[in-house]
């Protein structure tokens, strides 16, 4: 009898356990199929991957290229930055003007035309890796050949002079600076209006405007994208940077522009002699001076060294004599 009771008790325990296991299996299945685990996995798969800067740059270039090639489609809802939208909007207006549709919503039609022409001539150069349609090429060539508008030529020359006086040699390499930071703006681009939120920075006689990691300077009644001016202090820095140390000073290398932390933000400084970087900015060019090869970017001269097995670049003093090799 006692054994019987034990047996019964054991049987009931076993059945109870079996039921519990079965219940948990069913519950898991229901949860998964109801979107619990599976949905989570799905969301993990579908989540947009985080791209590194180089990949982003490539992606942006593709977007940029496709826009250029597809005749500047409507960019509303574009994920790009404020500046790129503004610049692209300008291009849309400009191109409309170029094909003779004469459909300008802005009051300053002449300025817009000039802007358009300027943007086209300044931005699109042969061999810079961006392909354009035959129509666009023809248009750019027409602008270059100065058969369209004399005032445009005057403005262009004036703007060239403005940039050259303040940033000597800017066209050689600096003009790709913002693209290198994945920002769709080239130095020399002009816009009618600044982004709503911008900082005003005064250095000597010039006033600069800083918004979305881009520096602008006023030229006539428009704004031109310029390189980061030495001495400028901003509240924020471009998101992409590498740390560089010279002595006890920490610098932030933002694609060839150097910043240091100051009390009220970050200050643009001259490239510090002695700074070592593993990679040069993309558009740095080679110069041979007294049989020594230098790489130049912005105002910085870099020289190559072996550090252990690796080739690195060190910022050196600006050599006295210059001779360019391609």
């Amino acid at each position, binding site marked *: 009898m006692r054994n019987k009771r034990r047996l019964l008790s054991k049987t009931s325990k076993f059945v109870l356990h079996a039921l519990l296991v079965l219940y948990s299996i069913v519950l898991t299945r229901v949860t998964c199929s109801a979107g619990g685990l599976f949905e989570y996995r799905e969301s993990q798969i579908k989540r947009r991957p985080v791209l590194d800067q180089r990949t982003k740059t490539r992606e942006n270039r593709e977007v940029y290229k496709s826009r250029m090639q597809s005749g500047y489609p409507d960019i509303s809802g574009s994920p790009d930055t404020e500046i790129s939208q503004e610049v692209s909007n300008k291009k849309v207006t400009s191109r409309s003007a170029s094909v003779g549709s004469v459909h300008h919503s802005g009051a300053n039609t002449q300025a817009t035309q000039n802007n358009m022409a300027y943007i086209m001539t300044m931005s699109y150069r042969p061999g810079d890796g961006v392909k354009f349609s035959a129509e666009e090429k023809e248009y750019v060539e027409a602008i270059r050949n100065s058969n369209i508008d004399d005032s445009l030529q005057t403005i262009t020359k004036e703007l060239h002079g403005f940039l050259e006086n303040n940033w000597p040699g800017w066209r050689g390499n600096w003009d790709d600076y913002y693209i290198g930071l994945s920002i769709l703006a080239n130095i020399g681009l002009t816009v009618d209006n600044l982004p709503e939120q911008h900082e005003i920075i005064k250095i000597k006689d010039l006033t600069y405007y800083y918004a979305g990691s881009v520096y602008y300077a006023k030229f006539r009644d428009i704004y031109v994208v310029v390189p980061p001016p030495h001495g400028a202090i901003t509240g924020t820095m471009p998101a992409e940077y590498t740390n560089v*140390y*010279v002595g006890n000073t920490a610098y932030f290398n933002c694609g060839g522009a150097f910043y240091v932390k100051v009390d009220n933000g970050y200050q643009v400084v001259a490239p510090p002699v*002695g700074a070592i970087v593993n990679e040069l900015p993309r558009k740095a060019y080679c110069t041979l001076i007294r049989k020594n*090869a230098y790489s130049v970017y912005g105002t910085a001269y870099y*020289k190559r060294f*072996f*550090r*252990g*097995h690796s*080739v690195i670049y060190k910022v050196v003093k600006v050599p006295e004599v210059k001779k360019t090799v391609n």
Partner: protein
Amino acid sequence: MLRKQKHIIIFTVICTVFLLCLSASHGIISADETLPAETEEKPVIDSRTDKLLRAMGDYLKSSGQFSFHAEINFDDLISSGHKIQYAFASDIAVHRPDRVYVERRTDLGGKRFWYDGKNMTLMDVTFGVYATEPVPDDIDAAMDYLMEKYGFSPPLVDFIYSDPYRTLIENVEYGFYVGLHRIRGIRCHHLAFVQKDIDWQIWIEDGKQMVPRKFLITYKTLPESPQFSATLSEWDLDAGLPDALFDIDLTSTEGFEKIEFMTITDTAFEKAGTGQQE
């Protein structure tokens, strides 16, 4: 009632035994603490492990010139904190006492290194640059000089030195035999060693040709404990290495830019120097 008493007795006995054990162990520990600490400082390597490593070293030492191939993987910690693995293949030729040639084909570019008893030259084929420096006139002194002045050495330099056993064992604190394991189908003695900053393992071929078949270093004090791993093959300990392999005429480097080496002091200055600029 009797059963209850029995339980109490058993419990008391267990407690007594436990307390006795505790006090005894404490006594032993106390006794150990009074022993001189010098025994801990001596490297502890079992005789079999030491014998095998020495045999491998002697085998390499006995060869006047040899060459081998290495497939190397190494971890690099990038600024985001991720551990990335790179790979390179290396061909190494040694002509004792004063010639070394190393060629590397790597994920990060191709490099050539050669030492001719007078000068050491490093060439980066990808960047099109080379640097050359006069160095001491035998392999051991030249490799020490490179490490001290420029902070680098050719890969697997431990096997290039004239006495590989002495070089490898120098800072070992502890070593033991792991077992007989296969590397690319070759049965090897697997040995492990512990040093202050690194742990390393070596697989030595089981047989007459006692050459290393694999070498693994774990940098245990660095973040994420990166590893360097080399699988060694194509050993030729009777290699008839031509002189031309080491005596490379620098005029053949036409088109390459000559650059300089940064010394360790330059590098230290850049990291935490005094702020003096060039």
